[in-house]
């Protein structure tokens, strides 16, 4: 029986084919001198899964995100990623060029402040097209059409394609940053407080857009947020951090509705009711 026959037989029996995690983080630690950024963090992320990292300012969320996404070298620990060809690679043992290519194509990174993720003095269309050129697209007409298509997916009018993002509102800039990240069809997207600094109606629109894109594209996402409502809306699972360590982890609604750790109970009980 060939491998594909076996998978079909398993599927027919209602048993899902064994899938490996997309990302495996093990013992990830980053220290700054004597201070701990994050310590001994381990988890697996599966294709299509959204993981929220929550905790208050200074809890190590962003340090962890940066260590996983290879923007900051960890002191110890490993990050393994399953590449498109199915092989698993330790991202800190890759050649620098290979890692950069991965970050430009199969990964995305949405910054809290769109200025950190966009080029403010080139057009919106070029901001989206640039990532396409990085993966080898050269045909100007195709790149422009794909850019316009992505602008419309993030609800930006076609007639803004030649405008620079510095003429955009905060919400539009954030949507443009998302389009720029998703145009190469990444499988894993990192987000650092993607709705921070936006007013609530703009935030609701962005969250709705993100929810739709994540489920349509089957994206795996690691989203850092201090906003538990954002975590509830976007994520399947969450980890709660305090002083650099994971103090609680589990299904998002379980952690929020039945928090166990004293700190998680404090966080949940501090949410303002509208």
């Amino acid at each position, binding site marked *: 029986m060939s491998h594909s026959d076996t998978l079909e037989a398993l599927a027919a029996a209602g048993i899902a084919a064994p899938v490996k995690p997309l990302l495996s983080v093990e013992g990830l630690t980053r220290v700054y001198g004597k201070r701990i950024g994050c310590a001994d963090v381990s988890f697996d992320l599966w294709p299509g899964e959204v993981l929220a990292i929550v905790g208050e300012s200074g809890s190590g969320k962003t340090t962890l995100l940066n260590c996983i996404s290879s923007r900051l070298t960890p002191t110890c620990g490993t990050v393994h990623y399953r590449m498109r060809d199915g092989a698993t690679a330790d991202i800190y043992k890759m050649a620098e060029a290979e890692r950069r290519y991965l970050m430009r194509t199969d990964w995305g990174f949405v910054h809290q402040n769109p200025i950190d993720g966009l080029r403010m003095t080139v057009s919106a269309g070029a901001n989206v097209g640039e990532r396409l050129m990085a993966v080898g697209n050269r045909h100007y007409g195709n790149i422009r059409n794909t850019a316009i298509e992505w602008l419309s997916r993030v609800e930006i009018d076609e007639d803004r394609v030649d405008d620079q993002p510095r003429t955009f509102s905060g919400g539009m800039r954030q949507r443009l940053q998302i389009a720029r990240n998703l145009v190469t069809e990444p499988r894993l997207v990192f987000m650092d407080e993607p709705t921070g600094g936006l007013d609530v109606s703009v935030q*609701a629109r962005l*969250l709705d857009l993100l*929810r739709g894109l994540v489920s349509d594209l089957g994206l795996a996402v690691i989203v850092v947020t201090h906003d538990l409502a954002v975590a509830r809306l976007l994520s399947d699972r969450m980890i709660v951090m305090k002083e650099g360590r994971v103090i609680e982890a589990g*299904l998002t*609604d*379980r952690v929020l*509705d*039945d928090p166990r750790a004293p700190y998680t*109970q*404090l966080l949940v009980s501090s949410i303002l009711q509208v």
Partner: protein
Amino acid sequence: MTTVLVASEVKKTFIMHMRGGVELPVVANVSFSLKAGSCAVLGGPSGVGKSSILKMLYGNYGTDSGQILVQHHGRHVDVASASPRTVLEIRRDTIGYVSQFLRAVPRVSALDVAAEPLLIRGVSQAIAHQRARELFAELNLPEKLWSLPPATFSGGEQQRVNIARGFITDHPILLLDEPTASLDAANRAVVIELIARKKAEGTALLGIFHDHDVRNAVADHVIDVSAFAAGKAAA
């Protein structure tokens, strides 16, 4: 009739760290089973732990000890100890849940809220929306509301959106947390009819119903939750 869920010796305590670690026992020794094609009802006074039991079966609350074995994809899985990924899979395919209150998401229409459980199982949007419209019509939800987000709906309207969302799939197990609490008599009758249909299709249902008429109309047997009251078990 096949047994599709067995809870045995399930225990739940809340520890309130904000109040100096005071322990709040909820239930202990919860043991019962659910059979395909029948409807069991959790009975007992308010605060005795009925909703907590439903939430543990759905993986929404953790358990201190005990097992909740569910027949899932042809094997037995313990919800109490399953990984988050497995719990999500069980919710997608095996256990449905109608919560007491709808959690409204900004900008998402009633139709999309109700259709979502089918969409995440890969059913096309056209078919999922068609099923949602049929259920809304049956539940007498005014058609002008269907394309609006339910956040501003009345309690009864939100509850009907929630019921449609729970009943739209063919999950083998369906949990119902007071699904008729805010409904008028005509719509209570619709829900009784929907439950009867689920039973006929072989679904195992477990519900909380404070309304006597509804309870008498749907219950095949009553599980007395006061017997699992934590105080009693400790004695």
